[in-house]
């Protein structure tokens, strides 16, 4: 199972306290993960790294609305499979819930 954390660096749409709290607890957890500055930016660049994230088994993604994340991957030419990808929404959900979902 892979974990991807999106820092949403280039806009202030994800509450700062939520994303910092999630990152802090992920960082302290001893869990391996990939963290990207901004998934939107990667999608705009059709970054091949998205392909690696989208393929190869289960992935949990801490970012924003699942519909946005799904179509951002699709726009990059690397659609995510219907099964095995879980998107956690840091715009709406609490850091507690996100971290619990990420680490279990």
């Amino acid at each position, binding site marked *: *199972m*892979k974990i*991807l954390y999106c*820092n*949403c*660096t*280039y*806009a202030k*749409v994800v509450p700062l306290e939520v994303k*910092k709290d999630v*990152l*802090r607890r992920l*960082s*302290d957890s*001893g*869990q*391996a*993960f*990939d*963290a*990207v*500055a*901004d998934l*939107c*930016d*990667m*999608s*705009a*660049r*059709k*970054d*091949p*790294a998205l392909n*690696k*994230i989208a393929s*190869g*088994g289960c992935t949990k993604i801490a970012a*924003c*609305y*699942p*519909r*946005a*994340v799904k*179509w*951002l991957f*699709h*726009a990059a030419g690397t659609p995510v499979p219907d099964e095995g990808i879980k998107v956690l929404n840091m*715009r709406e959900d609490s850091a507690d819930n996100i971290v619990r979902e990420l680490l279990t």
Partner: protein
Amino acid sequence: MTRTEGKNLRVVLYEGPGSTRLEDDERFQTLSTLLDNGFEVTRPVAGQEVAPADDAPVLVLGLLDKHPPATPGQEVHFRSLSDGDPLGAAREVRETTGARKLEAWKPWFPVIDFDRCTNCMQCLTFCLFDVYGVDKQQQITVQNEDNCKTDCPACSRVCPEVAILFPKYGKGPINGDIVKEEDIQREAMKVDISTLLGGDLYGALRTRQRDARKRFSTERDESKALLERKRCLSKLKKDLDIPDEVLMTLPTAEDIEERTARARAKLEKRQAKSQTVRDKQATTTDWGI
């Protein structure tokens, strides 16, 4: 290099054999600083999965005693965190490798929800900046993300299917939140751009683009004309969140208001008609026939 070209430097925060484990605070600060400055960071842990290596350049950062093994064929650079600040190291390696440097753009561009899109092409017709195109399968596509005007969600207002997202927009459903029934109702009242532009959509669009550019550059010097137009458009701006620069090239507020009023009347008529059908059905059921 445009804003959407080039490879990113991947930073690997290494704490495995041949290095000293980082304090929790230092690890978090390093991660946070690198991400806030546009770098991508991987934290590998033995026996756990991360995204595999690709051909992007890699910087391995850590309290390194010796260099950990690198993937053959990959450009890998090593810097020890004891040498100084991680951001400085990442910037320096980014320069050396020619990796993409991008610290000041907001990735703002439309993303199409193809579960909803009907390929009607209204967005392509509407956008003056060549953001949209058509792929080999004649399917609408976003082809020039760079051209999109930051913070302008205008085309999403035009889409009759609520199929255009701007993930960095404030409000739903444009930000990717689920589309509710009332959103669809609202979209049904939107400006029908094809009617607005007349019959020959593409011809009209070409002329309009040319005129709009000319008009915008002339009006720039004539502050009075600009002010007048701004006044005229301020209501629309407030309602739709569209920047001035884009508004200057759109139909006037009057045009749009007139079209909206007509669309609303049409919708009300349609709703009244369907209400009548429902009433009839209800009556039928009441009588048990």
